[in-house]
């Protein structure tokens, strides 16, 4: 296809050379342009819809039914356009307005048949198949509006894909007659210079892992002798790894020359041959853009582009450096060594990337036009633009990669401290002990008690332990486990310590140290009791493990530090029905949190300090939730359930825990920052 799709040409690279006389019209034609003054943001959702589409199939339309328009020689010819157009100078943003969906509206001028005084059509081809596809795609999309008054972008139905088939002057006149043309303001024209999208879409089925026979392939037929000679020299130096094809001269009748390439009498099928090579040359011909590019991408062959100052299609959003090799034309002779120096893994990446670009952006007229509109949309609403990753990462990478929302390497200062959030129901005595213990931690900033018992009021203010930091009680409306992870406004620090009302054995040193570790890993769960998930080969499913293991993949939120951001994620962004499931079963909220954090950051939690009994040593086994047998079974079920909802097992297993630097060192205890670690 090779299409230089034309939208606000940046630099004259895209402008084909032609006679200066025509150039003027051409410029008028191709400066992408705009106008209108409607700034209301009141766009309504246009239910362009199923019913209407069924209508179309019933009505059989023909292009010949389109109304005839006679152009006369005296009709005005638009004046020369402004070559230095920029979005802020030639595009009328008021037409697009502010709208909550951040989506532009596109209008298509209805089809007309333009003829001159003598009744001759202005274009030799009229509406081409491709342009028809393109306009249908727009009309089927969310961008479409049938109301010219609400449109931000207007598209003429005059087909200018191939300007060679146009009568330039008459086309310019026809465009000028469009309602709201206004020197092309806010109009979008599509122009593809040579070639079109290939008509053999089904011909290629890319084999993924087959080794490719050739290293470099040149398949273009319209190469200038000068470059062909240079390629031949390269081949002479590097032998069989290179294949240089040319037009076939003696094909038998009835064989399309488009589908064949030849080399020294040997005939190759095109485009299939492209799949046989690792790299495929896309060399400057008469024009910069080359039809070969699209074929090459489709074949998953890495394009090697030698066309100085060629602006690659959609280069505003597509990162071609990840899919193609660009070599200056003058360095053609070094092509072989340059390509040889690329690591094999990168070649694989580029093949995948090339194939993805084709699949997503070049495969059909529909993909091309949707990409174009999306780019314009991104310019008009830059704050809602698609991200680099959305444009460039193939689905497999999107799936496997993680982009942590807390990506800045930052060690927050100690000063703000942390907020302890204690979830409690009615164990007052134990709760008060926990509060008293935590209050000794130097970095504690505030204590928040989440009172989950609706049937009972919290104790009188006077009965609470006297502590030096503010203590707030939040009463909940329902006894739900997820209440502990609600992003309460009362939590003013980044760091949250979630702690159960029966964890009384943690020393102040242990807690303070946990906070210090959290500061070094603010995007992780940093907690005390560690747990593990295991794959049970017999049962063929995940199993929960709380025994003494050498590995850990979860830390329980019965005592853990984490970023308040994860409260917000847990409450509002938890996938599937996990939140309800947890509340219904009154279990596994901590496992859910571990899944959530690992999934969004791709990182393992950090277990701090040695294993110890965290609850009161004298308590019996039946007391408290997490000890009975059915409970453990249920937790295994949780892991399996969550893994299904997440569609993957995000938990990461590690073999380390964090201790103070001088832990267990033979060193005076009083000189250690955290002497009281691990004691029972």
């Amino acid at each position: 296809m090779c299409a230089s799709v034309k939208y606000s040409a940046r630099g004259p690279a895209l402008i084909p050379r032609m006679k200066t006389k025509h150039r003027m019209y051409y410029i008028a034609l191709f400066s992408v342009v705009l106008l209108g003054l409607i700034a209301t943001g009141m766009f309504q959702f246009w239910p362009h819809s199923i019913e209407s589409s069924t209508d179309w199939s019933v009505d059989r339309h023909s292009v010949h039914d389109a109304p005839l328009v006679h152009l006369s020689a005296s009709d005005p010819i638009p004046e020369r356009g402004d070559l230095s157009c920029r979005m802020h100078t030639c595009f009328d943003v008021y037409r697009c307005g502010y709208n909550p969906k951040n989506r532009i509206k596109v209008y298509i001028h209805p089809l007309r048949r333009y003829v001159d005084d003598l009744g001759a059509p202005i274009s030799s081809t009229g509406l081409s198949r491709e342009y028809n596809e393109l306009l249908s795609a727009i009309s089927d999309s969310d961008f479409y509006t049938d109301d010219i008054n609400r449109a931000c972008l207007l598209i003429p139905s005059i087909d200018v894909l191939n300007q060679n088939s146009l009568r330039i002057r008459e086309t310019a006149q026809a465009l000028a007659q469009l309602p709201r043309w206004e020197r092309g303001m806010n109009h979008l024209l599509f122009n593809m210079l040579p070639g079109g999208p290939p008509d053999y879409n089904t011909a290629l089925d890319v084999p993924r892992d087959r080794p490719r026979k050739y290293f470099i392939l040149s398949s273009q037929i319209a190469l200038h002798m000068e470059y062909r000679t240079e390629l031949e020299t390269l081949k002479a130096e590097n032998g069989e790894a290179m294949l240089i094809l040319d037009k076939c001269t003696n094909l038998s009748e009835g064989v399309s020359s488009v589908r064949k390439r030849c080399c020294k009498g040997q005939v190759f099928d095109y485009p299939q041959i492209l799949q046989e090579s690792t790299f495929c040359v896309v060399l400057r011909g008469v024009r910069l853009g080359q039809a070969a590019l699209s074929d090459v991408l489709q074949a998953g062959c890495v394009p090697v582009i030698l066309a100085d100052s060629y602006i690659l299609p959609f280069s505003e959003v597509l990162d071609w450096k990840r899919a193609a090799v660009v070599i200056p034309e003058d360095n053609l002779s070094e092509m072989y060594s340059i390509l040889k120096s690329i690591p094999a893994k990168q070649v694989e990446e580029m093949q995948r990337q090339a194939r993805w670009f084709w699949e997503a952006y070049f495969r059909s007229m529909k993909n091309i036009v949707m990409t174009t509109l999306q780019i314009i949309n991104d310019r008009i609403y830059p704050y809602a633009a698609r991200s680099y990753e959305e444009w460039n990462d193939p689905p497999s990478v999107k799936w496997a990669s993680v982009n942590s929302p807390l990506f800045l390497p930052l060690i927050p200062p100690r000063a703000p401290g942390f907020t302890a959030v204690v979830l409690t129901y009615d164990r007052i005595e134990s709760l008060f002990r926990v509060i008293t213990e935590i209050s000794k931690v130097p970095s504690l900033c505030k204590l928040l008690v989440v009172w989950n018992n609706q049937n009972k009021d919290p104790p009188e203010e006077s009965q609470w332990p006297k502590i030096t930091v503010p203590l707030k009680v939040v009463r909940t409306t329902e006894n739900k486990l997820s209440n502990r992870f609600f992003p309460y406004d009362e939590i003013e620090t980044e760091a949250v310590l979630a702690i159960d009302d029966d964890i009384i054995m943690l020393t102040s040193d242990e807690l303070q140290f946990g906070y210090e570790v959290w500061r070094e890993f603010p995007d992780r769960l940093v907690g005390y009791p560690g747990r593990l998930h295991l794959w049970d080969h017999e049962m063929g499913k995940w199993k929960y493990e709380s025994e003494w293991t050498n590995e850990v993949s979860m830390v329980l939120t019965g005592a853990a530090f984490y970023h308040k951001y994860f409260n917000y994620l847990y409450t509002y962004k938890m996938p599937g029905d996990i939140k309800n499931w947890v509340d219904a079963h009154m279990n596994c909220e901590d496992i859910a949190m571990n899944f959530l954090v690992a999934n969004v950051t791709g990182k393992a939690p950090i277990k701090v300090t040695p294993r110890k009994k965290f609850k009161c040593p004298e308590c019996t086994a039946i007391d408290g939730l997490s000890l009975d047998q059915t409970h453990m079974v249920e937790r295994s079920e949780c892991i399996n359930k969550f893994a299904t909802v997440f569609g993957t097992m995000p938990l990461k297993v590690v073999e380390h825990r964090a201790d103070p630097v001088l832990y267990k060192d033979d060193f005076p205890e009083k000189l250690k920052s955290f002497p009281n670690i691990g004691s029972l």
Partner: protein
Amino acid sequence: MQAKKRYFIVLSAGACLVLLFYFGGLQVRATRNQSRREDRLRSPEQPWPHFSDNLQSFLPREQLANEDYNMHLSPRQKRDANTSLYKGKKCRMESCFDFSLCQRSGFKVYVYPQQKGEKISESYQNILSAIEGSRFYTSDPSQACLFVLSLDTLDRDQLSPQYVHNLKSKDLGFDIGQAMLAKASIGAENFRPHFDVSIPLFSKDHPRTGGERGFLKYNTIPPFRKYMLVFKGKRYLTGIGSDTRNALYHVHNAEDVVLLTTCKHGKDWQKHKDGRCDKDNAEYDKYDYREMLHNSTFCLVPRGRRLGSFRFLEALQAACVPVMLSNGWELPFSEVIDWNTAAVIGDERLLLQIPSTVRSIHQDKILALRQQTQFLWEAYFSSVEKIVLTTLEIIQDRIFKHISRNSLIWNRHPGGLFVLPQYSAYLGDFPFYFAALGVKPSSRFTAVIHAVTPLISQSQPILKLLVAVSKSQYCAQIIVLWNCDKPLPAKHRWPATPVPVVVIEGENKVMSSRFQPYDTIVTDAILSLDEDTVLSTTEVDFAFTVWQSFPERIVGYPARSHFWDSNKERWGYTSKWTNDYSMVLTGAAIYHRYYHYLYTNYLPVSLKNMVDQLANCEDILMNFLVSAVTKLPPIKVTQKKQYKETMMGQSSRASRWADPDHFAQRQTCMNKFASWFGTMPLIHSQMRLDPILFKDQVSILRKKYRDIERL
């Protein structure tokens, strides 16, 4: 010409006002229209019909195939013809830049010598010395591929105190011809894409190296600050750049949107004073700029006299997301930086929509934008040196297109300056992108043992070490770097090991050779060892499993710390037992092999020479480098403190660690390094990583790394 310009400005200002009024008025009209439109039936025009005709292709392939291309000019001639066309204002790399100069000796930059009596502003002097201090600098013009003027062309604003007089003035001062322009506050109209470089406007106090860190200390949730949107600056009553700022008061609400202007600037402001001036000025004085900057979610950066303003960098550093209102400003380094990830690009024409636009931005997005401001600030803007290096790297990337950075590298931590594309084209070969690509580092390591003493006895520590390391299940190969004056020992002197042992003679037998990026190293991880290091197989295994979780950091055993010695006003180095550490010495540490490349190719010759001459401090320098890149501390694993035989007793007399000067040198090194980096990159950590069951009261048989406890 001046009159013409003024006329144009007045006209465009007028036009803008008319537009604004029209826009304002239209709101009303549009709402009225709305109802009318509702009544009318939907436009009778159909959506695009589905034609049943058999349409032709717009350009049959056959037609294309039959064009005889050799009839035309040769592509080369054609290109040359274009080249002469694209000169001056239309310059591009291909037409105005001589690539052949760079092919010879790589990307080298020459600075023209300064003429006597030439006045150079402080900022420009900083730029020049940053270039001269960079690894691209050459003093030989015949080696150079890029030439930099020593004429001060920085400030062409005649009103500015920084303006350097005596340059023949016209537009930029002189005809730039085919020269590239690195210009602050450049307008898109005059910007030659992929040829000029847009740089940020920075003040004369901008530090030459190092630079302040960003102000963001925590990521609070919800991410909103006291103010939503603020601005405080001059209002120009007439002339360029007056209209946007003149209209700001429409949006100001004195609550969370605080946009303040003052008329009080220049000598004769009273003369042009308008009706709003007194009110504005009073409001202006009520607020403190710094306070607003640090307490606002968004900061408005409207054009002033120039397109760009100092506000931009100030907001960036303050983690106040810039809201750009400067149509046509080519943002700094726009060629490589994706500003949509760190700023809101507004349109001056839509000023009145700005409040609703910023309010519509989702919390998650704000959090990301804010962090990105900090990343960009620290990566490219915080010092003159960074700005200069970024400019040079952008140009270098253009010249060597096939070995250049992609957009991901530029826009993600640690940024383009620390990621050298010459190292590898594959992102997975760097330690920074595993998460972004969804891949893992390779699961094996290469051990590099630095040998300096001849092999005499079979009980030498190096042989024990060799055996212990080779037994690690993760060990791929061992490289012995022979930096000893004595000739290589015979092959049979080395013990038999399950993995290959390669002996390499160090280049010139200098210290830096231990950080050479040897081609024989193919694993991501390197275990760097001194010859007298004592480590068990278990310890090696454990350290490696930890490294796999932190592939961008140094993970190892010998921890050291730095501190600020306020009596001597310099950095101190300590090997005492402390509650924290900031370095892990490379005598027993694992890190990514990219750091070898970075050490060799990024650090200046002066520092590497210093290390070589002292035969000391290479490990400190490596720690400086890695922390400067990651902005994170290294990681110490397990309890082990004594990892040298020398520390345990007599033996090994030749060891450099026994030398009393050795320690003093290390202090000196610290300070030298800190001054080159312009800041102290080392960061303290208070924790070490132990095996999960380390010293837990459970049967030793249950423990995977039980040997670690026995030591």
